[in-house]
């Protein structure tokens, strides 16, 4: 069977997750390789979550949060971007391709943007090829 990417999307329940919902309601299509995990806030995303996903064979990890100023908890997304930037530097030094991990702000009204972002990310991961750490179940 040909390789299909497995993409983990960790989405804030107040914005990106709503954006995904809107994308569905508006019948925008995006790749079926995307697996969404809902979290209360992008500030909840520990770098450990991303690393564990990569270790267990995810080909790409996408984190979606609210635009600055829109965070339901006021500053969760500010914490998220600091952690994410630092994690990305660390992961790059450890040999993870930086393109495999991405952070983007997608609000609840940006259903179209969500579908576009997923399509772009999927295309990028297909170009990169399988995660060299692939050890998870190949479902």
């Amino acid at each position, binding site marked *: 069977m040909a390789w299909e990417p497995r993409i983990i999307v960790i989405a804030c329940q107040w914005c990106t997750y709503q954006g995904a919902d809107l994308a569905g309601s508006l019948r925008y299509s995006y790749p079926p390789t995307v697996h969404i995990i809902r979290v209360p806030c992008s500030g909840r995303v520990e770098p450990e979550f991303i690393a564990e996903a990569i270790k267990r064979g995810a080909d790409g990890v996408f984190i979606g949060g609210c635009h600055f100023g829109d965070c339901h908890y006021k500053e969760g997304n500010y*914490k998220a971007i*600091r*952690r994410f930037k630092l994690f990305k530097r*660390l992961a790059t030094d*450890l040999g993870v391709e930086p393109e495999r991990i991405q952070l983007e702000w997608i609000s609840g009204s940006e259903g179209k943007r969500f579908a576009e972002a997923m399509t772009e990310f999927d295309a990028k991961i297909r170009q990169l090829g399988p995660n060299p*750490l692939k050890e998870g179940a190949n479902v």
Partner: protein
Amino acid sequence: MSKPKLAYYLAGGCGGCDMSIVDLSEALVDVAMALDIVFWAPTVADAKYKDLEAMPSGSIDVGLFSGNVRNSEHEHIAKVMRDKCKVLIAFGICAALGGIKSLVNLHTTEELMETAYIYTYSTDNPEKILPQTSYVVDSKYELTLPKLMDARTLDQVVKVDYYIGGCPPHHEHVAKAVTALLSGQLPPAGSWITMGKAVCEVCDKNPVLKGQPKEFAKTVKRVYEGVPDSEKCLMEQGYLCLGPVTQGDCGSKCPSVDIPCRGCGGPIPGVKDFGLRAVSAVASMLENEELVDQIPDPVHLFYRYTLAGSFLGKRIKR
């Protein structure tokens, strides 16, 4: 009743953990009286591997294993220790999570050998001879050396019952651990022997303990830049300190002398990957995201003692 039997083995370590036991000083006399030390190689007792191998399985009550597993000899003795000891303890951060020497996992063994034996400036080796695991002298005597491998934690080789952090573990913590061990008051198997508090919780610089709010770091400084204010939290002054996620069994010894914590104590309970949780803690204490780019070398800072025991474990080869 016969005395509990103790075995101690130093693998890929520096002997610092042995020293921290010797540092028990007067307490060591009581400890040594209460225990029957059957094996302590290669530092303290004159014991041979064959003596250890000859002991019956499960005949030793407590085994302390310090240092990481770096070659085939360490791996063999780790398995022997597991077989002979009822309780096996990863003693010190090297055995528990790889230690500072597990930073070798950022390079391949071939790279390390070439650097050490061929390309260093002071090395004269025009024929590029590298150490071999086996060599026959006069076509009849075979000499062998252990095979070098990536650094691994003890629990990546055998099952481990308890972990003790520290580089080395502070002798007061060792005394508490030994007392707990001798009196049988141990936590559930598989856990760290720790009081469970972070370095910050025992640090006298922590503003929160003085009832003041904690401020964001406005700059990122390295230890040699400027002189820190001894009264203020090092993190607030921009000296990146891993105290928030490190076990405080050391009693916050480094921050008390204005040296930021580097995380040798191991992770506080509930942390799966020390370096990444430290990234999380430190990043959220910076005032803005531009400061992140001023941290010079994230891997060596956050994984200084824990690379082998991390999720990724080593640099990924593409």
